[in-house]
């Protein structure tokens, strides 16, 4: 009778533990994946103003742009404006073909990054430089060394001159504000900077979650003109221009460097098109995933271990009835299913593929399956005792009692270390 009461108390304790885990997993506050920025203090105006404190030329240019008149209607793309004019401007051949267009991208503000959808929103300064000898003029006419036009004036002139038809192919949607500045140098060099807030698509690789690095990419591609006519390139000035503003922040992420990479895209009949990608890498702050994901995941690993630890080997077999421990294992299984549902719903990016979280879930299921197998074979049918006698049976149970936690913990740590490597 006494043993029965003891088993009942254990069952009750196990049920309470599982309920606590279950409730914690279901109602654990999951952080939304759309990292948003709040507060007008970090808005565009302030970002631009702060950028003006930067010592570099590009940052100064960015700051000056913030004071530029805002063109209310969003301007048409460069190519469209060119095509729409009465006399379509022709490609400049003064320096021969192809026309070399220098590309630089300055990330002024990072507004959000939704790694579940693979989308990010940011404000960028996109700079193109090329030379059109038809636009050359006497140096005496440019007291600052160049002529500069902004807003509407710039748009009007851009509509009349040739501009490269470069498309940001991964842009999803853009904001209403587009600021544009145009500089023309006496020798015909042209420089345009377009400031735009837009949303872009990017691929997300969560294999190393939560120690992963993602890339916010602007994919620039020349449309219509093949590499025989226009090529995108970048020199050290473009590389120096291409960076992220020091004031730019993104919740849960640490911005790094901007890398420019040139490429050629094949087209029809052997045509080739020039492409440049500007990618800003951002490192996830690993601590953000610790509380909502990894603590419940590791905690849920304790459930199958508890099913082993709560029993005790006796001369006749085991102290606790197998069905009570099996109940515990089944409860643990439902807890893990609930946890996986909760995590995958909130963190869609880790739901598919191979990553630390899916591996830890796999470990959870494997441990549960193993504990249930132990409960059935060892506790229910006493197979070890039947096959090898009670002494072996005792030793096997003792070994399982320490080996399972050691291997489970070791494997969990290994998964995390592999991700952090």
């Amino acid at each position: 009778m006494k043993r029965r009461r003891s088993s009942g108390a254990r069952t009750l304790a196990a049920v309470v533990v599982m309920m606590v885990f279950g409730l914690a997993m279901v109602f654990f506050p999951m952080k939304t994946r759309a990292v948003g920025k709040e507060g007008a203090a970090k808005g565009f105006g302030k970002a631009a103003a702060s950028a003006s404190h930067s010592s570099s030329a590009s940052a100064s240019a960015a700051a000056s742009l913030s004071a530029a008149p805002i063109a209310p209607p969003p301007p048409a793309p460069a190519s469209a404006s060119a095509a729409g004019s009465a006399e379509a401007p022709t490609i400049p051949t003064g320096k021969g073909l192809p026309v070399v267009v220098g590309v630089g991208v300055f990330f002024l503000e990072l507004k959000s990054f939704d790694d579940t959808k693979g989308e990010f929103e940011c404000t960028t300064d996109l700079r193109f430089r090329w030379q059109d000898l038809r636009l050359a003029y006497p140096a005496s006419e440019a007291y600052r060394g160049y002529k500069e036009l902004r807003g509407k004036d710039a748009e009007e002139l851009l509509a009349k001159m040739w501009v490269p038809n470069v498309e940001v192919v991964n842009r999803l949607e853009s904001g209403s504000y587009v600021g544009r500045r145009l500089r023309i140098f006496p020798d015909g060099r042209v420089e345009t900077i377009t400031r735009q807030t837009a949303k872009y698509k990017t691929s997300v690789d969560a294999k190393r979650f939560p120690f992963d690095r993602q890339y916010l990419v602007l994919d620039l591609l020349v449309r219509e003109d093949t590499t025989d006519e226009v090529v995108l390139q970048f020199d050290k000035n473009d590389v120096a221009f291409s960076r992220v503003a020091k004031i730019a922040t993104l919740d849960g992420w640490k911005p790094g460097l901007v890398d420019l990479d040139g490429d050629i895209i094949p087209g029809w009949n052997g045509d080739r098109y020039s492409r440049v990608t500007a990618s800003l890498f951002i490192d996830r702050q690993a601590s953000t995933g610790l509380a909502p994901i990894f603590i419940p995941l590791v905690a849920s690993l304790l459930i199958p271990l508890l099913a082993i630890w709560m029993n005790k080997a006796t001369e006749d077999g085991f102290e606790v009835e197998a069905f009570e421990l099996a109940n515990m294992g089944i409860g643990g299984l439902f807890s893990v299913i609930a946890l996986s549902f909760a995590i995958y719903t909130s963190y869609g990016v880790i739901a598919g593929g191979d990553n630390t979280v899916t591996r830890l879930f796999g470990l959870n299921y494997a441990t549960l399956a193993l504990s249930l197998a132990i409960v059935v074979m060892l506790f229910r049918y006493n197979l070890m005792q039947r096959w090898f006698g009670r002494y072996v049976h005792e030793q096997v149970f003792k070994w399982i009692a320490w080996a399972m936690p050691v291997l489970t913990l070791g494997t969990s740590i290994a998964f995390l270390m592999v991700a952090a490597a």
Partner: protein
Amino acid sequence: MGKRPAVKFRRRAPAILVFSSILVILSLTAIANFLTMRMLESSKAANFKLMRDVLASILKSTEDKALSRAEVVEAIPAVHNAFLAKDRAKLLSETEAMFKEQDEKYGLQSAQFHLAPGISFLRLHKPEAFGDDQTSYRPMLVDVNTTHAVRKGVAITKSGPQVYGIVPITDDAGKHVGSFEMGLELEPMLNKIKEAYNIEATAFIDEKMLTDIATDLKGDIMSPKNRVGRYIRFHATHPEVAAALVADKDVEIVEPSSYERTFAGTSWGVQLVPMYNYAGKQIGVYALAQNLADANASANRARVWQMLAALFGIVFLSGMLLVVLRGLLIAPLAALNEKYAALANGDASQPADPTDTYVEELQALAENYEKLRAEKSRS
């Protein structure tokens, strides 16, 4: 002489066997780790060699370009004849457009005609400056005008450091009269390394030489922010990376050297190569940097898996040893021993466990115990 204390087999034997097993597994893991590290180091060494080979190849290619263009231009009859006639104006009119085109498109920074042994006759990049004797600081030029053979290499001139190709010019009678050179910028050459191999490339040039010789150098190159030790960071495909990876002490080299450094969470392999001029004097340093993050991450992952495999090995082997030794030998023997002790003290009430509980070797002992117990019970 005292009696030596008996060894406790039930404690010592499992401990020794488990310890030996752990030692063997850890040794094997350490060897596997060592081999992984060796492979990684070997891979990195190959990477560094590749960087040096890429630099050497592109440098040679640039030198060849400079030389071949110089030979082509010098061979144009109108140009050749204008130089022989020492008609500077005609020579300029024949070559001016060509130079401008080459400058804009292909990074041709300078082109110059010299009269032997090294007097500037016409600088296409600066026609108004001529007549200066360059023999004091242009050993390659002197060599061409002395040996009458083509030469190529890196040199610092008034225009800055460039890759030169110089060809001798002879008159119709075969008499040496001067030379023609073309100088290509370092920037396109380093940019090509970046474009083709994704290797960040930087050129550091001796500051004193730049100050003394490259007097026509334009721009803000000679600024404190570009100063690295006694060198000036003349050109970098990624200035931010170059500034972080190559510091004052690093750049002080006289032979190729390599190292690893982490910047912005990324591990970079840096290869430094001395830059020599034609006379074999070191005038600067090339720095090449390649992202090694993937290689390091792969090696680290391999190490983690090896350690996990070792842990599994230790746990399973220890478990088997403990279960076999204790479960089949030590624990049954201890139980039998207790029963024998009780029997010796006259207690014949404790039966042995069923025979099939014991291994074959202990079954005889258990059977003998039962015989003794039966005899004791009868008596």
